[in-house]
């Protein structure tokens, strides 16, 4: 049982504590699972990799699940991924079936989480085994593919691609590292800043800035809306919840969890895409599509199993290719780097204990989430009333602690936090896409090494097309995803034009 050495009371406690805090972050509108992970990252330094991941994965699962509470009770999604839960959850709540709606959502979340976990368990090692054979050429193309998928699923293809390349560009403001075969020269910076920027912008302060500080700036801009009072949050229980509701919904549950998992596997695509897609499918295949949006339980089932399906799915590309599946898993890369562990195709094989720990942590987190929320929903609801004027300053302080301690005390990291906090705020108003930017930033450096080293060894540009059949397949996928996106935007334009004409 050497492989389960990590399973200590502390480990279980950390997962459960993480899940609980995650639910709080998820349930408070304006705070997200990503922010929960960003804020709690500094706490993981002394915990070691397995225990640190236990906490972070708990936060992740809890954060994604907690969003359903305000979605049902207040018509406000607690996290972006529970937006479709509001469509049917709130009408049910207004009908006096609040508790029933919440419990349907909670159970669907559990099923979504578990199904995606099974997919993760079987799919990640297989994909990693396959990816081990990749040379620098294929690795470079995988990154381009990841960016093209993300751009394709952005609201605007051109701006999505631009954001991804901007991320790569910013990641290149550093030294071309000798350790990776570079020539040790700095680039893209004035001489006066060389002292600070020699090592580039550190990943975690950038992420904490974008997901922590920027979120607070947005809330401040909106005047820090007052917290909820218990009066707003009445959990009505006119119609009791019963598991029999799921009898006719097994197909919907499995399909939505599957869609969530698949969307999670696509790099950089967040939870809102997972739930919107599951919801749309559930509506299309439903016998009573006209009931959707008026308090149809199947809508909540689709939305919540879809967004929790994301949790396992998003870890697949992270653990097999080193490419984060969404913004929260991008932060997990930070946790790995912190402990000196590199994620990529060799990760699972070289770190079987950590791999097991992650799976066990996810199982515990999903069940902890279920029991905490299902049986204590009335108390969980009270948590939403934690006032923001208390919470936000603490979050800001934790952002500073995280940024400062990340490299053991470099104040420039705190300024990085501020720069990217303001950037995150600006980006939203400029309609820049954050997910491709982050993935570009994280993978920019590797993509440079893969690209330049491939050219140095083969001295031929055509190598990117002729290296292997995998390279050819990847090109087909890259062109396919861009073509798909162009088609999609054309269709959208046509629809708008038709609507205008009507």
């Amino acid at each position: 049982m050497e492989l389960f050495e990590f399973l200590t009371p502390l480990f279980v406690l950390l997962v459960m504590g993480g899940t609980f805090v995650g639910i709080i972050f998820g349930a408070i509108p304006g705070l997200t699972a990503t922010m929960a992970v960003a804020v709690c990252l500094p706490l993981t330094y002394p915990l070691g990799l397995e225990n640190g991941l236990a906490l972070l994965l708990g936060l992740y699962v809890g954060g994604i699940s907690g969003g359903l509470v305000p979605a049902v009770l207040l018509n406000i999604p607690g996290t972006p991924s529970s937006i479709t839960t509001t469509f049917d959850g709130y009408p049910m709540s207004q009908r006096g079936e609040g508790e029933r709606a919440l419990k349907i959502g909670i159970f669907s979340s559990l099923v979504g989480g578990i199904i995606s976990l099974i997919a993760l368990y079987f799919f990640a090692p297989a994909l990693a085994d396959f990816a081990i054979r990749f040379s620098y050429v294929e690795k470079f193309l995988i990154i381009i593919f990841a960016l093209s998928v993300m751009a394709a699923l952005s609201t605007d293809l051109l701006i999505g691609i631009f954001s991804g390349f901007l991320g790569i560009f910013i990641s290149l403001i550093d030294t071309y590292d000798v350790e990776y075969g570079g020539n040790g020269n700095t680039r893209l910076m004035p001489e006066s800043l060389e002292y600070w920027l020699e090592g580039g912008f550190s990943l975690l302060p950038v992420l904490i800035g974008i997901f922590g500080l920027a979120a607070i700036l947005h809330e401040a801009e909106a005047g820090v809306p007052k917290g909820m009072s218990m009066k707003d949050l009445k959990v009505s229980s006119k119609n009791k919840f019963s598991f029999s509701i799921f009898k006719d919904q097994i197909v919907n549950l499995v399909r939505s969890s599957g869609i969530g998992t698949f969307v999670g596997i696509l790099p950089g695509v967040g939870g809102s895409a997972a739930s919107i897609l599951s919801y749309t499918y559930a509506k299309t295949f439903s016998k009573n599509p006209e009931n959707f949006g008026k308090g149809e339980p199947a809508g909540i089932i689709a939305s919540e199993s879809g967004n929790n399906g994301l949790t396992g799915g998003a870890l697949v590309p992270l653990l097999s290719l080193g490419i984060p599946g969404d913004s929260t898993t991008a932060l997990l890369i930070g946790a790995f780097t912190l402990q000196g562990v590199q994620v990529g195709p060799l990760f699972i094989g070289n770190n079987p204990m950590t791999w097991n720990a992650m799976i066990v942590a996810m199982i515990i987190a999903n069940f902890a989430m279920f029991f905490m929320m299902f049986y204590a929903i009335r108390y969980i609801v009270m948590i939403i009333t934690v006032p923001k004027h208390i919470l936000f300053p603490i979050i800001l302080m934790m952002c500073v602690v995280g940024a400062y301690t990340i490299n053991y005390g470099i104040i420039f990291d705190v300024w990085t936090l501020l720069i990217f906090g303001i950037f995150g705020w600006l980006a939203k108003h400029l309609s820049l896409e954050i997910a491709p930017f982050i993935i570009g930033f994280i993978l920019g450096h590797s993509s440079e090494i893969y690209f330049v080293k491939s050219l140095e060894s083969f001295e031929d540009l055509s190598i990117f097309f002729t290296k292997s059949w995998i390279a050819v397949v990847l090109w087909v996928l890259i062109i396919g995803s861009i073509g798909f996106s162009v088609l999609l935007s054309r269709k959208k334009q046509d629809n708008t034009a038709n609507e205008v004409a009507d």
Partner: protein
Amino acid sequence: MFEFTKVTIDFETSHLLFPTIISCILALLGISILIRDRKRIATSGKHWSIIFSKMDKKRFFGTLFLTVLYFSLMVPIGDLWPNTGYGFLICSIPFLFLAGLLFLHEYTKQTILPVVIVALIAPTFVWWLFTDLFFLSLP
């Protein structure tokens, strides 16, 4: 494969190769966006004036100001007592208090008291956690 696809990379300038390519792509993308969205960009002044007119200026700029002040003072104050984390502690308490007040909507004894308590306890707890328990340096 073909002669024109052949490339030789000069190691001395290899650090500029990828940044140059990315800059060119960025510039191309930027120009395409400028051309495509020229109408929207031309009227962007209006977009920003709407954002600023809707903005809660006191809270937004207040947060920015407090944050910059907080970041700037932490190290100089911390340098007075090196490696103790006092800079963090001394700056965090007023920062939490002032930020709490800034975000607060109704100023009564019942609402201000929790802000004071949290401003005292939270930084002290984090300071103790990081310096005494985790042995990590704070400013």
